[in-house]
């Protein structure tokens, strides 16, 4: 029973970490066909910005966190203006944008490493303490992470499904040309989606660094997990990504406890390979047409 509770709790925490970074990634893919390889670097930038404002400058959390979120948004907008917009007319947009964002990732990670050093740092903005459920220690920080991610995802799902902006995003995702002809300012939609994606990355970077430590390469693993979540849910699925993130979090925790840490990542990757071969549209999508 103890192990079971432990598995569920660490699965939920893992799941909420994955879901927020996966959402940023899947939204960009679903709406704009952009597979952002700099997503991991965005996480790193968000985490370090929180450290810089909160730890280095010593600002209070209610200034430091918005500062870090703003950093994420600005990065998203910069990648739109500097990479996605110039490349959009390119015939091989889908693949060139992957290569270009790899370049962005290398630059950001190198800058962070130069600015803050390669050694792991402790994120000052984290909740201390916790409580016990049946002899299992649950840190308050994990509870916060879990709550924040669920609230965010429900909110984002609402925005995409029910609001004017959401309708515009879905229109652009379904048919770029037609949306443009209907008077939708596609440039604004692109900017909006990039900004949200950057914001989500920053949030997940901060959450991740409160749970572990900051390091210039900390973004790679969560990005890989976000890819896994997106593929399994179906790239471009917002609601599906939420479910898949938590399911995979619990699965990963179970495998780690039962089979050993060694097999967790290979098993998830195997799941990706099998999904892509037999159901490339993802496990949770009903048909090919319903992106977002």
């Amino acid at each position: 029973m103890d192990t079971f509770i432990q598995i569920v709790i660490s699965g939920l925490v893992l799941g909420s970490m994955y879901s927020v970074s996966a959402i940023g990634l899947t939204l960009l893919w679903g709406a704009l066909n952009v597979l952002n390889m700099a997503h991991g670097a965005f996480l790193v930038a968000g985490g370090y910005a929180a450290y810089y404002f909160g730890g280095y400058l010593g600002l209070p959390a209610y200034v430091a966190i918005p500062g870090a979120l703003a950093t994420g948004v600005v990065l998203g907008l910069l990648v739109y203006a500097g990479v996605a917009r110039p490349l959009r007319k390119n015939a091989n947009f889908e693949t060139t944008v992957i290569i270009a964002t790899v370049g962005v990732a290398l630059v950001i990670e190198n800058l962070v490493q130069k600015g803050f050093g390669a050694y792991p740092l402790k994120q000052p903005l984290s909740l201390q303490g916790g409580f016990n459920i049946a002899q299992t220690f649950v840190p308050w920080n994990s509870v916060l992470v879990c709550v924040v991610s669920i609230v965010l995802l429900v909110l984002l799902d609402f925005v995409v499904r029910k609001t004017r902006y959401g309708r515009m995003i879905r229109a652009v995702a379904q048919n770029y040309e037609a949306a443009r002809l209907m008077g939708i300012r596609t440039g604004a939609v692109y900017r909006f989606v990039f900004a949200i994606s950057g914001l989500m990355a920053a949030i997940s970077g901060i959450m991740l660094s409160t749970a572990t430590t900051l390091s210039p390469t900390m973004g790679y693993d969560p990005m890989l997990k976000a890819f896994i979540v997106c593929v399994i849910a179906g790239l471009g699925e917002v609601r599906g990504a939420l479910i898949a993130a938590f399911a995979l979090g619990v699965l990963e925790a179970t495998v780690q406890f039962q089979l050993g840490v060694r097999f967790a990542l290979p098993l998830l990757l195997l799941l990706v390979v099998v999904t892509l071969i037999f159901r490339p549209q993802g496990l949770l999508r009903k048909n090919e047409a319903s992106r977002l």
Partner: protein
Amino acid sequence: MTMPIDPDLMRDPDQNKRRDLTIAAAAIVVCVVLPFVFPNRYLIGQGVTLFLWVAVVSQWNLVFGVGGIFSLAQLAIFAVGGYSAAMLALYLNVSLWFGMFLGGLVATGFSLIVGLACLRLSGAYVALLTLALATALQVLIITDTTCFMRQGVTCMTFTGGSRGLSRFGDFGFTAMLGRANAPLGNYFLAFAVALAAMLFAYLVIYSPIGLAFRAIRDNKLYSIGRGISSVRFQLLIFGASAFFTGMAGAVFAGHYRAIGANILDTSLLLFLLSMMVIGGLGRFWGPLAGTTALLLFDEAMKELGEWRLAGLGAILLLSVIFMPNGIVGLFRSRPAAR
């Protein structure tokens, strides 16, 4: 492919035999003469690296540039070739010379499986699948701790684990050429592999097969409509591009007398990807130009080691935006057909 094809239609406008022969002759002369003019160990070692990456990138270019399949599995194929040769030498005492060809064959088999897995996918999905495979391979090797055999008091794992495989010998150039000239042996072996790989790439790119690859890349539905089997050609391209890649892996293992899971690092993958993109995707001379340019860049960045990644990223980004046809594309008068 049963219908006779009008030879004029098959001729690639990029192909210029006289130009290609001139460049090739010049490059071969330079590569052969250089180690005798500058008999410098460091330079010769860098030459081996150059040749091995040219071999790998030229084959990757067949899949990625000519075939338009966004596969990131090329270093995994390279690793499979290298590891196979190393394991055959270590466990079964197979000579590396023979193991080199066996490594190429094993790599071809592996690549065919990857190609099969990618059959129904396109674009970013292929990238994700192949990246997942390469990462899983690396994780499984690094975390391998099961005892396979004992070497004195230490325990050897089957794949070498995080320490990698070593003590499987080399190509035996020290015995053949003497200690002083042994590096030259590796140099010319790597040169031969690169040359064979380039020649093979040339034959593929300018053959009807290459034409079919490009047709599928440029318009899949139309080329299927014209009777090109995309399944057959995709498997063909995955298989064909793997043999010399695997051989290069075996030469790598023999040159360094060791092979480890670090050759599956994403940073190396990105370095080779940059070579291919910056040289010019789908162009015959692209891999040579890109590999040379990036190794020179790396040499120049030695002074500024800590900025190496940012420099690499910036070059990659700028070249995708401003130089979509790569270095080779700069030397063309006609706009690109892609």
